[in-house]
């Protein structure tokens, strides 16, 4: 079987299994948080559509970019290999005629799609509730697609990183938490080129910039602060390259490493 075909088969298996798993429901409920917030904001700012875009950018940056996709990627990414080892179901996969890289890539693709689905629903609901007054404006949809693209790239990059962690660490989730909510939240605010050692830096570089929202929202001003954005094309290329490199490393490790069940 070719690697591409094997990836498709593994993808199909885990896309099906992933939909049935209990954690989908937990994360889907979590995705309703910005929807509830959007309803509240809509009621509070009723009739004032002007600041909506800026407020939504804040929701996007604080909830989606720095929390939701990170937590999703952390749990799904680390589980790609770790759950097979912990549940001892790895035997069912590696005794099939599947290249080991196809197991990682197929499961990665299935989980990325699953996470993206949850993000699309949450983002669409919250975005269009907040911008209900501008539904005839074509720019609204373009901005939505842009947000979606950025979050999609974020899911891929973070999941690739956490997949790599899961292939060689036993307690990958702890290290992942430190990375996702420690390193990423600190490094991005460092001046100069240091901030470029975080994934979120490139994601923020792709988002529309609303200086008004920074001066207005004092509580989250620090989180929205962006020192030196990378040019959009360079940011996209960097995210793609980093994701590909992390995944390639994860596949190589999974192929060479021996996984022992804890007896």
């Amino acid at each position, binding site marked *: *079987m070719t690697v591409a*075909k*094997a990836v498709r*088969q*593994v993808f*199909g*298996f885990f896309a*099906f*299994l992933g939909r*049935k*798993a*209990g954690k989908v429901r937990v994360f889907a409920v979590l995705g309703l948080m910005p929807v509830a917030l959007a309803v509240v904001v809509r009621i509070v700012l009723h009739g004032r559509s002007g600041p909506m875009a800026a407020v939504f950018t804040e929701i996007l940056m604080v909830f989606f970019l720095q929390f939701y996709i990170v937590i999703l990627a952390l749990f799904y990414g680390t589980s790609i290999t770790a759950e097979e080892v912990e*549940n*001892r*179901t*790895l*035997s*069912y*996969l*590696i*005794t*099939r*005629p*599947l*290249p*080991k890289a196809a197991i990682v890539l197929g499961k990665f693709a299935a989980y990325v799609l699953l996470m993206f689905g949850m993000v699309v629903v949450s983002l669409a609901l919250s975005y269009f509730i907040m911008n209900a007054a501008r539904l005839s404006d074509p720019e609204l949809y373009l901005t939505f697609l842009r947000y979606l693209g950025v979050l999609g790239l974020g899911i891929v990059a973070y999941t690739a990183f956490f997949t790599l962690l899961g292939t060689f660490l036993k307690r990958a989730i702890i290290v992942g938490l430190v990375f996702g909510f420690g390193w990423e939240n600190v490094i991005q605010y460092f001046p100069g080129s240091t901030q470029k050692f975080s994934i979120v830096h490139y994601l923020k570089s792709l988002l529309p910039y609303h200086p008004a929202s920074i001066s207005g929202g004092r509580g989250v001003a620090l989180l929205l602060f962006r020192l030196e954005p990378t040019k959009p094309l360079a940011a996209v290329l960097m995210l793609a390259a980093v994701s590909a490199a992390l995944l390639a490393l994860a596949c190589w490790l999974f*192929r060479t490493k*021996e*996984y*022992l*069940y804890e007896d």
Partner: protein
Amino acid sequence: MTAVISASHLSKWYGNVLGLNDISLELEEGITGLLGPNGAGKSTFMKLVTGQMKPAIGTVAIRGRRVWNDPEIFQGIGFCPEQDVFYEDMTGSEFLAGLLRFYGFPKKEIDDRAARALDVVDLTADKDRLIRGYSRGMRQRIKFAQAIAHDPGILILDEPLSGLDPLGKRKLIKLIKGFKDEGRTVIVSSHVLPEIEALTSQIVLIHQGQILAQGDIPYIRELIEAHPHQISVRSSDPRALAARFVGDRSIQKMTFAADGQTLVVETHKRDEFFGRLTGIVLEGGIEVDEISSPDDNLQAVFEYLVGK
């Protein structure tokens, strides 16, 4: 006959613990039983044969091809793991069909093969139930079904009979024997001698990571027979019973247990001893309440062989 599975100077460590120690063997077509107590190294051997582990030293090959990181080899291998683990959120039918996808079969064939395997293990009626709701025996059967669903030429079964009721065991034994008749190769592990005996006459005895003996049942039986057995006989009058055995050539040693009611006999000729004991009981005069053979088990045999 060409070896289907061959291992050469195979060793495996778990940290400082030795799992397998310099094993060299060749397994041919038919059924081979891997027999050994828990922790003997049977599962380690099976994991090495199925590419789940990498040998620390030595090689393991199937039909001449090294197993580690050669996925194509698994097109013709079915593996039934020892662990009672599944993708619990799937139904029996989804589980089989899902795993069959990995062989590249078209959709229709996947459905047909899954249905056939479910039928073989008598789970057709429960195919749409979640595996998490299956009984232990059903779980064991669905695990076996996933190993045979793709029609492999080589079946590797790690403790396949554990958890099955006597009827289930009998059915599975018949099924496994059927595979042999179809010219397939089956490697089956167990720590229960009668289970292996019911399946095959070709046995490999494993203990503490080493092969103690390899051969057919009569040879293994010979080894076992050479082992002096201890038999305890609880009787109303153990001293009178002992008196009847004095001079019997099948007896090596007789002692009385602390309870004063039990005669402990050591013999090399177990069958002869039991024949004589039956005769004494039938003659009358001595009542026997209980007969037990504390070391008539695999562990004792292994200990004897190791000490030999």
